[in-house]
């Protein structure tokens, strides 16, 4: 995870739920590269075709509510989002997104200081997000160390892989 994340901003409203990020009709698709072409089809239809890797999503409260579908953060990761920032997140989306290694930052008040295509500068450890155009900024409580470790490992898969590799005995075949 980079210490400073900078990118072009896409803004979103309140309560953008997972149906708006990846519609129920696409749930049988598991290839992230196909999913990314459907991402935010209901919530922000132009995003899939016009976003660039490194773009940052800035949403209002309760981003990612609804179902536990990991398709939603999978699709956003495949689209290359640099970070997802919101006034607040729904619980499972937040976990999924962090577990996939996407910097996911809850910063109350953040939506109000951005317009579409402003540039955001996030200082992860200092806990500030600044609008480079206007100079406005908000601060956020730094992530717990446990989650920083997870992001630094590149996500949960890598973290568990290291843990299992360190303890080869746990992978001995089990007797029936």
């Amino acid at each position, binding site marked *: 995870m980079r210490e400073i994340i900078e990118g072009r901003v896409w803004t979103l409203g309140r309560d953008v739920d997972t149906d708006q990020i990846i519609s129920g009709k696409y749930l049988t*698709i598991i290839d992230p590269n196909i999913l990314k072409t459907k991402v935010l089809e209901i919530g922000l239809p132009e995003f899939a075709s016009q976003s660039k890797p490194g773009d940052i999503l800035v949403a209002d409260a309760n981003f990612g509510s609804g179902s536990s579908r990991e398709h939603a953060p999978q699709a956003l990761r495949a689209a290359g989002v640099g970070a997802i920032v919101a006034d607040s997140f729904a619980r499972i989306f937040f976990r999924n997104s962090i577990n996939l290694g996407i910097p996911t930052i809850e910063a109350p008040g953040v939506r109000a200081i951005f317009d579409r295509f402003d540039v955001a500068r996030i200082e992860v450890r200092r806990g500030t997000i600044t609008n480079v155009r206007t100079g406005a900024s908000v601060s956020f409580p730094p992530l717990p160390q446990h989650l920083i470790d997870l992001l630094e490992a590149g996500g949960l898969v890598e973290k568990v892989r290291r843990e299992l590799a360190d303890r080869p005995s746990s992978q001995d075949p089990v007797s029936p």
Partner: protein
Amino acid sequence: MSATSRGHGATLAEKILARAGGKDSVVPGEIIEGRVDLAMMHEQGAQTVQPFHEMGATRVWDPDRVVIAIDHWVPASTEGAAVLHRILRKFADEVHLPHFYDVGNHGICHQILAENGWVVPGDLAVGTDSHTNMLGAMGAVAAGIGPTEMAAVLALGRLWLKVPTTVRINVRGKLGPGVTAKDLVLRALGEVKTTGATYKAVEWTGPTIERLSMPERLTICNMTTEMGAKCGMVAPDSKTRDYLSGIAKHSMHPMYADPDAQYERTVEIDVDGMPPMVACPYSPDNVRPLPDVAREHVRIDQAFLGSCTNARIEDLREGAAVLKGRRVHAGVRFIVSPASTAIYRQCLSEGLVDLYTEAGAVFTNSSCSACFGGNMGIIAPDEVCASSSNRNFPGRMGPKEGRIYLMSPAATVAAAIRGEIADPREYA
């Protein structure tokens, strides 16, 4: 029970998570590594397979604590769904997971867990579906997680959890005739709202909750998901023990909140005189008294009696009592989908399949059915559905304009008969 070293007692969630974390006590905000008692996967579990292998895992921590229950597309309605099922069957074979509820023995995953005794008091249960909260009715912490996280659970048998604060919903009063547990949870959603319990535990307490049957408790815990909650629960009692007697898959370790437990807040609800409720588009917390909405003559095109929230045998009997001898309104498609194969068979033996189909309903096999807009029962953009399910967000039943009203099984049937939202008490 004595207070812990924290100076006050523990909530039910704190008690259960302390046990799961191997600790004497925990405080909200603390991160624990929780030992999992039961892990459940449905089709989304197909996305668990790749990360499981990428983690370098080769075996599952405890195959007797893993349940796979496919439900969203059963039988497979698209090639994509068939492939998901295939991935899961192959994975179950490869890592020796015997508890697979496959086509013919299927049902909505949460109902499968409940009716087969997979979750018992004191458990920490996780599933790859957001409504895993429903199993909190057993006096357990049951929470939804994503498939990558499930891969870690399958490999390690544990996951990190932040101990939540608890919102208590304390309910008194008597539910009137035609007013149900669904109306109660809708009323509670109207007060707590869809973000009111985000990251938190919900604990239902009070004399009304103690009187609720297990199926009713499953309904109210199911929709704590719509409050944003990590889990929602009811303390176990003799009803819990009776329900699980003879079916519990592992030993119970019931826990109870201390009398001096510290709640983040308590929401008091008195249901005396409460009318049936309805959640209007496009949010489950957009709740109004049903009679007010009925006065506006909201026409419907489809009615759906189904979903993990309300498709148990008790719900289908409740609907049947309203329908008896009446017909589905011309121009309304009425879909009835029992929550499991066991319930389906029970409906057959009680004559409910005849009753519903004679009235003009379509009685489908047990699955998530019309609940999520990805399988069957999809509505057109300008259409309206009365539904006993749990979500009415834009796009939930297909097109983003489609309008869904959430209500009890009785009210769903009343709407199917009238062709518009109607007070079920008029059909008593």
